[in-house]
């Protein structure tokens, strides 16, 4: 068995053994259900206005897409709580040298932590996506649009998880890892809006911002540039985390 897989399995178990994971699952599921009900309520109010327009927005546009967009913003704050202990926890428990002694490299540890830390967010996504999909029982959903939105949310979650692992590699305390990951995610989230506020609409900041690449998914468009953007974020964060781990090994 490759060391990263053993590390991922242990991380998965450790996360699900923590009360925090179950609290987050319960709280965000409840919030997701509430957002769905709000969306349905507003759809019921708005639907008559579009009833006579054949190209008017349907339940997917008025209920599902806004719900997924709101959940995406929520992930910026939720994922860091689930990743904060990933590496700094090992350092505090004195178990990181065990991984080094067993021959695991920095990149194997970082990747294993990333895969393991994705466990709870993936379960959360599955629960949250089941909610709008349940509408298919009573209405016609645009499943292509829902799938695109789900893919966007999944890629964003992967990027935020990798960012959380990176912050955990540099932090001295889990809380500071969570705060750093939230701050970085928030900056990534508002960068586009902040740039637009200054009249910049096509600058680097606009391009780097998370919503710039998420919006197209929510509209049902899967562009390869957006997929590559999120994948690059994952690779960059995990690469930096692996470098930090290699440095920690050198420092002893």
């Amino acid at each position, binding site marked *: *068995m*490759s*060391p990263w*897989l*053993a*590390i991922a*399995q*242990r991380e998965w*178990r*450790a996360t699900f*053994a*923590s009360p925090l994971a179950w609290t987050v699952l319960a709280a965000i599921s409840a919030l997701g259900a509430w957002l769905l009900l709000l969306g349905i309520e507003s759809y019921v109010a708005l639907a008559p206005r579009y009833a006579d327009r054949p190209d008017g927005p349907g339940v997917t546009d008025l209920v599902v897409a806004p719900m997924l967009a709101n959940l995406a913003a929520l992930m910026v704050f939720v994922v860091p709580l689930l990743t904060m202990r990933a590496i700094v926890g090992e350092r505090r*428990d*004195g*178990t990181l*040298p*065990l*991984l*080094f*002694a*067993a*021959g*695991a490299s920095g990149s194997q540890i970082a990747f294993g932590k990333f895969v393991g830390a994705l466990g709870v967010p993936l379960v959360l996504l599955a629960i949250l996506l089941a909610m709008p999909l349940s509408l298919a029982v009573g209405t016609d959903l645009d499943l292509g649009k829902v799938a695109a939105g789900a893919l966007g949310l999944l890629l964003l979650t992967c990027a935020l998880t990798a960012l959380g692992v990176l912050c955990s590699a540099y932090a001295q305390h889990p809380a500071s890892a969570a705060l750093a990951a939230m701050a970085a995610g928030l900056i990534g989230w508002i960068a586009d809006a902040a740039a637009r506020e200054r009249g910049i609409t096509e600058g680097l900041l606009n391009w780097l911002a998370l919503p710039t690449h998420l919006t197209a998914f929510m509209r049902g468009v899967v562009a390869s540039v957006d997929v590559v953007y999120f994948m690059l974020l994952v690779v960059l964060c995990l690469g930096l985390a692996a470098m930090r781990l290699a440095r920690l*090994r*050198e420092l*002893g």
Partner: protein
Amino acid sequence: MPNEVLIHASGVARRHAAHLVVHDLALDVPAGMALGLLGINGAGKSTLLRMLAGVLAPDAGRITIAGVDLHEEPRAARRLIGWLPERAPLYPELNVVEVLTFAARLRGLARGAAQQAVARAIERCDLGEVRQRLCANLSRGFAQRVGLAQAIVHEPPVLLLDEPTAGLDPLQAQRFHGLLAELKPGRAIVLSSHQLAEVQASCDSAAILHAGTLDAPLAVGDGAALRARFMARVLDRAA
């Protein structure tokens, strides 16, 4: 025919900031020998063991484990090493079987082989009664035994133990020494301690780490000479 040298170190040096912790250190430990590494606190025992375990890279020098160069083939060399740091590396949320299974799989053992290895380590370290207990709830004595079990779960020919009986009561320490005696055949063991009595109880020979260098090992049977040399080093450091 002399036993094969399982641990070989030559010219090993390591700095911490401006301080030279270990310099030009040479060491050979053959199979079947338990070497006690004596030194007062801060002498560099843990640093040396971490370098031998491949957890800390030396600034200079060469270390081989059963002929495998730790720098050139780190993964292969580390598979030959079992290392118990001063604080047993245990995951509080896992039980004993889980933590040993993780250690086995981390070292590349397949599921079936890992299960067998864990059962063997549990039996050898007498951990049957706590096998389902969470590591967070283990006493210090059991925690050290689980730490030793994770170090030997992959049957390494080299064992590195950093102050393994620190914090154990005399009975627990005695049991630990008995366990080491059982593990010694065919293995090279290096055990660090700042207590002469512990090294005498569990090792064949002892070397004193002093001011970053290692004295030539002395047989622990020659207790008077060992004590005299150790006290001279301690007093030298105090002066």
